[in-house]
């Protein structure tokens, strides 16, 4: 009961941020609904109802696009036909597919922020992880090993690539004081060029294509959770959930995590207490990069099945917003990733069915993040009494300060 209440009190601002963003989104839908706007002079009542109807249809389409149509899901399960079930649950499964890499990278960012490092390099670490997994998978193709073994090795190699890419800025900061915001951003570009270089090598490139894309992984795949046609949801999602648990345990239940958090909150006090602040930085960044790299590995082998430069799609930056929305809690990251996943998949159907542009979703996501970053605004809109500032705020403000 107490934990539920504390969860609710923590979820108030993020929750209301989402609601407020959706309300503003609705206003934008109405204001851009030219058909009904033009009627406002002649038929005001019709125009108002028309506009409200438009919002309802748009958000309705978004909901069913993200979670499926409940009636249809029930009917499909009653009929028992695999094809029907697959069609009915596909929207929900696509939401989870979209959420999977967001969970990995969101966790990566949460770990770094919790430990005082402002990792803006999630993109590069994700890409490098994907490259590592690709390299391992391609190298193992002639061995004829079972798919599952190739997968495991590829994910491990990919994770290590991401970890290495994260370790570099950690090392630079610990040894030279180089600010991680600069180094991680720059390593995003370097990483993209490294991946590009690999993609045009004969080793990785799809033979005969001439494009910077890898061979499609026909000999290795991430096993699906449910074996139904056209359902892409695979064990990567489950691993993402497990990693959320692992990160939570690491940060809050181990001595290493205690050290990482202490150094992140207050580096000098950590040094005074006999901890190695530099070591904490390097380890934290390696863990963070490793999580992002693991996400890249699962996406490239499972979801997409082929490495190309656009697989990251700016995920490192979306994940920063997501981690903040999650108040840097692993469980929050999972919820926020599901929300973002639902908005992206639902937005697609909204675009198709109601004619409201998909881009509205970017507006809504951006508003959510803005509101979460300005809790005072949400509190004043909804008249919520102020509590003490959460410790996360402090992590943020200290995160970019200080060196060894």
């Amino acid at each position, binding site marked *: 009961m107490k934990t539920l209440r504390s969860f609710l009190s923590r979820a108030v601002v993020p929750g209301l941020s989402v609601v407020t963003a959706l309300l503003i989104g609705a206003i934008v839908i109405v204001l851009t609904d030219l058909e009904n706007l033009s009627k406002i002079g002649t038929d005001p009542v019709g125009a108002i109802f028309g506009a409200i109807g438009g919002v309802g249809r748009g958000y309705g389409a978004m909901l069913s696009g993200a979670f499926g149509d409940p009636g249809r899901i029930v009917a499909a399960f009653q009929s028992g036909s695999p094809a029907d079930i697959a069609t009915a649950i596909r929207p929900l499964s696509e939401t989870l597919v979209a959420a999977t890499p967001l969970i990995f990278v969101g966790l990566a960012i949460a770990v770094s922020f919790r430990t005082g490092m402002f990792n803006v390099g999630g993109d590069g670490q994700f890409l490098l992880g994907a490259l590592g997994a690709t390299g391992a998978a391609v190298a193992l193709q002639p061995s004829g090993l079972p798919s599952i073994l190739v997968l495991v090795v590829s994910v491990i190699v990919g994770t290590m690539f991401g970890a290495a890419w994260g370790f570099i800025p950690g090392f630079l900061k610990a040894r030279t004081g180089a600010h991680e915001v600069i180094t991680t951003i720059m390593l995003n570009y370097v990483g993209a060029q490294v991946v590009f270089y690999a993609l045009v090598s004969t080793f990785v490139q799809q033979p005969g294509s001439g494009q910077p894309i890898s061979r499609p992984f026909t000999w290795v795949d991430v096993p699906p959770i449910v074996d139904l046609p056209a359902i892409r949801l695979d064990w990567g999602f489950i691993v993402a959930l497990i990693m959320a648990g692992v990160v939570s345990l690491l940060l809050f*239940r*181990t*001595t*290493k*995590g*205690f*050290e990482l*958090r*202490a150094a992140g*909150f*207050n580096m*000098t*006090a*950590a*040094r*005074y*207490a*006999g*901890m190695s602040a530099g070591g904490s930085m390097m380890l934290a960044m390696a863990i963070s990069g490793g999580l992002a790299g693991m996400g890249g590995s699962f996406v490239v082998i499972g979801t997409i099945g082929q490495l190309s430069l656009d697989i990251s799609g700016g995920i490192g930056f979306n994940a920063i917003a997501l981690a903040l929305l999650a108040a840097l809690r692993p469980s929050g990251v999972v919820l926020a990733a599901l929300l973002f996943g639902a908005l992206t998949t639902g937005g697609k159907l909204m675009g198709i069915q109601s004619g409201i542009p998909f881009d509205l979703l970017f507006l809504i996501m951006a508003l959510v993040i803005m509101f979460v970053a300005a809790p005072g605004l949400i509190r004043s809109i909804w008249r919520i009494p102020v509590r*003490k500032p959460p*410790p996360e705020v*402090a*992590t943020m403000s200290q995160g970019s300060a200080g060196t060894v």
Partner: protein
Amino acid sequence: MRLELREISKRFPGVLANDKISIAADRGQVLGLLGENGAGKTTLVNILSGLYKPDSGQIFIDGEERVFGDPAAAIHAGVGMVHQHFMLVPVFDVVEAVALGAETVSGPLNRFDRTAARKRIVELSEQYRLNVNPDAKIESLPVGVRQRVEILKALYRKSDILVLDEPSAVLTPHETEELFGIIRSLKATGTTVIFITHKLNEVLEVADQIVVLRRGRVAGTADPKTTTRQELANMMVGRDVELIVPKGPAKPAAVVLKLSNLFVRDDRLEMAVRGIDLEIRAGEIVAIAGVQGNGQTELVEAIVGLRTIDSGEITIGGNHVEKSTPRQVSDLGVAHIPEDRGRDGLIAYMSVAENYILDTYHRPPYSKRGVLNRTAVNEKAAKGVKDFDIRTPSIHTMASSLSGGNQQKVVVAREFSVPVQLVIAAQPTRGLDVGSIEYIHRRIVEQRDAGAAIVIISTELDEVLAVGDRIAVMFAGQIAGILADDDATYENIGLLMGGAAAGEGQAA
């Protein structure tokens, strides 16, 4: 001008910070406002300076009621503030800093009339014997002079009522004496001074009347001519306090900490500790007195392994620790109470329990194969909270929401939670109120009697005299002298702390 506050009340969520406080000071009078941290002094001052609006109550100046909507209104009414933390632009010179916001302007472009401003500042400086060079850059000035610039600022704005908030917190004893001289000359010209402090000696020396605040109320008033330190302390705390913790004579045993010809550089690579030889024995308290910035910080950091030494030797219990890490030193049984507890001793946004294990988390019973044993952490922290009387709603409360005294108790409780042979306590009671000081001194003496060697670094003469068995005075990176027993007087220590008169600039 006569200032009167009548029944001022101010409530913050959960606290009644000021509860019907009435004070009055006549023209040319110094009112000493004495109280512990959290007694409501700062709230009252902020009301007087227009930063807060009182929930009820009235402010009268020369019998006329005034309502201050903002600080500008208070300044206009003649109330000048000198805050504890100075509000000066470092790159400005004194004239610019003083005139900022109250510039005399001339010409069509409203050009700052520096000549006129400078002239007035020189006049004021001479009139009140402030002795401030009007053309010096703020950043080049010692703290004591910066404070005089703040006073100049208030006088420049024609303040007849001057409020000084904990003015001596940043000053050396000598600078404090100078400040008192300035206060007396202000008084002589008819300025009313409200002097806020928690230091008993100061109100006794400079105030014409004393008002003691406790928990938002006026606990009593006293006449400095007839009252005593003890009486004031009891009034402040609300019970009988021991200003000097009783302790038996030291029984020095084996040498625990030995420093031989120690040289240490500071962050700018200048030699901060210049050849110190010192032996500290089990069962004695050696207080290291000195004005801030004479190498004490570097000395402490070198001993506990936070700073590489330049040359010389440090041994603790016979072990050489010149190249040891802070953890290795701590594992030898060294407790370190850092001088800046907020920055170095605590992690503000971690809980009391987490702070309690900050330097022992890696040892049993807290850690078992890399996993934190939360039950053990919570049990030990709860015991620490109880033993050290730490006032906190729970062990899971953030350290940041505790008062300064309770934060320091968390640090002390943690450092004394394991057996120690050496205690390095830097400014262990800085900023704390009488009650907390008494408590922390008592705990330190307990450790001495249990056989630990204790080093206390302090800039407060009262503290040094109260707890030190021997007193070593540091000046310019060296031990200027070691005093004990009858030689350890206020005057002797003060002389050594100031070094030679010519060396004063160096010290600041």
